[in-house]
C-alpha cells in the first residue's frame, strides 16, 4: 500500500537524483554559478536531513563526481551514516585530483573521525603508484597524509615534507623530479602537468617540449593538446575512438566547421565506434527510435561548460543510432548533418516533436534543456494532447532527458507532466536513465525505487 508520504519521498529522491546528475555548481546558460551552488546546497541538506539512508544510497546512481564528493563529505561528517564499502567503491571511480580535493575539503571542515581516517588510508594504500601521485598531486597528497596522521615509509615522507634533505632518491620518478630542477633532460620523465612547469622554468620551446613529452601524455591530455600541437605539425596520436562518448562529442564541437568537414570520415568513424562501444550488447535492440535534439542557442551552455548540452545531444544522437534498429534524429534548427551542428536560433520544440511523431516511432527521446520558447509551452501541449487523444495506450514511449539543472525549480525543467524527465550528464547513462524515468512517471512506487537503488549498489559492488 502506497501512502502519500511514500510518494513524496519517492519524488524527492528523484528530484535529488536529477539535480545530482546534472548540476556541477558551475554557471549555466540561464543561471549563475552562485545560484546553482545555493540551490544544490539546499537540496543536499534537505535530502540528507529527511531521508539519510536514501541520501547515502544515491551514491550508487550515476550522479556526477561533484555531487558524489559532496555526498561523501556529508556522510563522513555524520558518523554511522552510509555504507563504508559503497563510499570506498565510489571513491575508486572518481578521478584522483577530485579525490584529493575531497580530502582537502574534509581537512578544511575538520572531519577527522576514525572512519574517515581509515577510508583515506585505504584509498592511499590502493593507489598503484603513490610516488607518482606525490609528484603529480603534491599538495593533495601532502594534505591527505597530514590529515590522517599517516607515516609514509622512507623516501616518500622525506619527498613530501623535506624534499631537499636527500642527495638522491631511489624511486625513479622522485629522482627525476629532483634532477629536473637543473637537468633539462630529466623533466621528460615526469608527468606532463609537472613537466610543463619545469619546461617554462628552463625556457624550453613549446614545440620541442611537446614533441619530447608526447609519450608521457595521458589519454585526455592527448586529446586536449591535439589541436594546438597539430598547428606546430605535431601529432599527439590521440585515439579518438577510445574516448568517452560525450568527451569526444565536445572535442568535435570545439573544432571549426571547415575542419569538421575536412576530417569528416575520421570524426564520424570515431563517434560511431565510441557509441557502439557504449551500446555493447544492446546495440540494435531498441527498435524504431526517433529523437528530437536541441541545438538552440541555449545549448551553448556557458563559458565554463562550453557547448556541454549540445555535446550531450550529439552523443545521444550517435548512441541512439547504435541502440536503435531504425533511427531518425531531428535537430531543432532543421540541420540534417549532425557533424555541422552548432548552437544557434530559438527552441521550437513543439513543431519538431510533431515532426518526430509523424512517423509513429516506437520510442521518442527528447534531448533538451526544456526552455521551450517558440512559442512557449507548445511542446508540453503537443505532448499532452498526443497522450490524451491520439495515443492513450502509450504505444509511443516518450522520454525527455535534460542535461541542465534549473536552479530556480530545484530540478531539471520539465516539458509536460505527461512525459517523464530525467537529468542526463553522460550519454553512457542513457539506458539507465530511461529506466529511472519510469519512477518519475509515477507508475512504480517507493518500494521499487528502493529495490532499484539496492540493485544498482550491488551492481556497483560487482563491477
Amino acid at each position, binding site marked *: 500500500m502506497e501512502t502519500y508520504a511514500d510518494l513524496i519521498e519517492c519524488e524527492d529522491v528523484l528530484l535529488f537524483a536529477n539535480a545530482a546528475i546534472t548540476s556541477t555548481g558551475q554557471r549555466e546558460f540561464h543561471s549563475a554559478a552562485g545560484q546553482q551552488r545555493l540551490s544544490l546546497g539546499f537540496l543536499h541538506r534537505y535530502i540528507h536531513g529527511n531521508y539519510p539512508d536514501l541520501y547515502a544510497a544515491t551514491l550508487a546512481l550515476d550522479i556526477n563526481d561533484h555531487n558524489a564528493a559532496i555526498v561523501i563529505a556529508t556522510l563522513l561528517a555524520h558518523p554511522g551514516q552510509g555504507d563504508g564499502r559503497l563510499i570506498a567503491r565510489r571513491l575508486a571511480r572518481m578521478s584522483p585530483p577530485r579525490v584529493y580535493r575531497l580530502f582537502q575539503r574534509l581537512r578544511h571542515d575538520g572531519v577527522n573521525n576514525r572512519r574517515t581516517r581509515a577510508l583515506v588510508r585505504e584509498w592511499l594504500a590502493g593507489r598503484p603508484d603513490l610516488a607518482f601521485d606525490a609528484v603529480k598531486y603534491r599538495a593533495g597528497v601532502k594534505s591527505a597524509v597530514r590529515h590522517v596522521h599517516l607515516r609514509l615509509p622512507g623516501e616518500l615522507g622525506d619527498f613530501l615534507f623535506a624534499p631537499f634533505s636527500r642527495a638522491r632518491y631511489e624511486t625513479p620518478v622522485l629522482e627525476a623530479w629532483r634532477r629536473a630542477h637543473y637537468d633539462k633532460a630529466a623533466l621528460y620523465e615526469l608527468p606532463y602537468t609537472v613537466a610543463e612547469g619545469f619546461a617554462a622554468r628552463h625556457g624550453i620551446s613549446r614545440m620541442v617540449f611537446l614533441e619530447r613529452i608526447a609519450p608521457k601524455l595521458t589519454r585526455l591530455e592527448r586529446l586536449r593538446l591535439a589541436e594546438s600541437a597539430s598547428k606546430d605539425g605535431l601529432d599527439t596520436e590521440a585515439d579518438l575512438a577510445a574516448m568517452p562518448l560525450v568527451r569526444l562529442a565536445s572535442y568535435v564541437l570545439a573544432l571549426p566547421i571547415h575542419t569538421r568537414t575536412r576530417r569528416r570520415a575520421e570524426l564520424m568513424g570515431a563517434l560511431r565506434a565510441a557509441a557502439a562501444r557504449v551500446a555493447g550488447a544492446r546495440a540494435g535492440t531498441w527498435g524504431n527510435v526517433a529523437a528530437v535534439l536541441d541545438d538552440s542557442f541555449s545549448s551553448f551552455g556557458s563559458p565554463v561548460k562550453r557547448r556541454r548540452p549540445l555535446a550531450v545531444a550529439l552523443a545521444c544522437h550517435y548512441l541512439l543510432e547504435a541502440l536503435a534498429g531504425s533511427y531518425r534524429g531531428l535537430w531543432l534548427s532543421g540541420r540534417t548533418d549532425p557533424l555541422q551542428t552548432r548552437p544557434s*536560433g530559438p527552441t521550437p520544440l513543439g513543431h519538431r516533436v510533431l515532426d518526430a511523431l509523424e512517423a509513429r516511432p516506437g520510442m521518442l527521446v527528447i534531448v533538451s534543456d526544456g526552455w521551450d520558447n517558440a512559442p512557449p509551452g507548445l511542446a508540453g501541449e503537443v505532448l499532452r494532447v498526443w497522450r490524451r487523444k491520439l495515443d492513450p495506450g502509450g504505444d509511443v514511449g516518450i522520454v525527455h532527458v535534460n542535461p541542465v539543472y534549473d536552479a530556480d525549480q530545484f530540478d531539471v525543467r520539465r516539458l509536460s507532466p505527461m512525459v517523464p524527465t530525467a537529468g542526463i550528464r553522460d550519454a553512457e547513462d542513457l539506458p539507465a536513465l530511461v529506466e529511472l524515468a519510469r519512477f518519475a512517471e509515477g507508475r512504480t512506487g517507493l518500494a521499487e525505487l528502493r529495490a532499484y537503488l539496492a540493485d544498482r549498489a550491488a551492481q556497483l559492488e560487482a563491477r
Partner: protein
Amino acid sequence: MIDLTGLDTRPAQTWGAMRLVPLVRREPIEDLRLHAKVYGDEPSVVFLPDKTVYTSYVPHAFVASWTGDGTPAAAYGTQLGQPLRHMCIRTRRRMARRVDTNRLRFLPLHLAVEGFLALHFGGPVIAWEEWSRHAIAHGLSARAEDAYTGAEVRGLDDALKVFEIYPGQCGLLLYAGDTLASAFVVPHPEDYRALHPTLIRDLYGELVYEYALFYPARDFPAVIDETTVSSLADLRAQALLREREWADFHGSVMAARLLQAPAHVEEVYRLGRFTLSRFLPAFERKSENHIGETIIDGDGRLAYLKTFRLSEAQSRRGHLLSKLAEHGWSLPETAAALGTDAAALGMRLKGAGFGHLLRQDVLDGYRKAVNGNRRTRRGGGTSPPA
C-alpha cells in the same frame, strides 16, 4: 504610419520584467547597410561588383572623427549616406561630466535625443513680447531630457544575453512590465546580429526604468483545445494556429499604439530609394508616446526603425510645446485653446522647466496673478509668515 509589413512577429521570449519580441524579415534589404566604418577616420566608399546602389546610414548613436581636424563629432540625428550634419563634442565639458572614458559612447545618444527634440521645436517663430531674448535667439536648443542607459535598466543585460536570436531576425520590440519600451528594426539580419548587444547601450525612458523593477513578465503559454484534435494533422494545424494567434495579438494589442499613425512625420532626407523621416507622437497624456526615426524604401517597406518612449513628464512637456507651436507661440491664444488663462499657462511652462524662455518680468507678473487669484479664492488671507 509605421507599417511592419514584411516583418513577421515570432513568439516572445521573457526574462524578468522584460519581454522581447523578435521580428523576422523574409527578404532582407541588401542595399541599405550599416556603415562599415563608423569609427573610421577617412570616408569609405564601397563599390559592389554587381553595380547595385549601396547606401549606408549613420545611426545617431555613434561618435566618429568626421571633422577635418580629427576632433570627435556626433551625428546630428540619423543620416543617410556620408555624414554631413554633425555637432562637435566639447571635450573639456565631457571630461568634467564623465567618470570613465568608456562612457563616451553614451554622450551622442543624449545629444541625439536633445538635438532631436530641438529639431522639432525650434522655438517661437513670432517674437511675441513675452518670450525672452534667449528664446528668440536660440530657440529651445540645449534642452536636456533625462534618460537611462540600457545598462541601468534592471535585468535588460540578462534578457539580451539569454535571448535566442531567430534566423533572419531583423528587429526587436522590447517590453518592460508589458509596456512597449523600444522598437528596433534594421535592414539585414547580419546588421541585427552585430547590433543586438548594443541595445544595452541605448537610451530608455524613465518609465521603462521603473517598469523594469516590477513583477516578472509572464509567458503566454500555448493552450490547445484537445476536443478539436482527432489526428496528427489537426494537432499540427492547432500548433501553427497558436503561433499565428500570438502574432495577431501582438500586432493588434501589444504594439497597437506604436503602429498607429504618428501625429507628425517630418521627411528629413531622401537618398536613392530610401527616405529618412522622424516622427513625433500626438503627445496625448496618459498614453504611450514614442518619438523615433524610420527609413522607408521606395516600396514602402520599413528598413530601419528606432523609437524612444517618452516618460509621463516628457509627454507633458511635449504636449505644451506642441500646443504652443500650433498657436504660433502666442501665450494668450494657446491658453484659450487649453481652457485656461495666460498666467496659469506661464506658470505651467515654468513648472515644466521652460521658465528661462519667458522674460523675467512677465513671469513675475504671472506668478503674482496666480498667487493673487489663489489667495482671493481662499478667502483673502494675508501672505504666509516668512
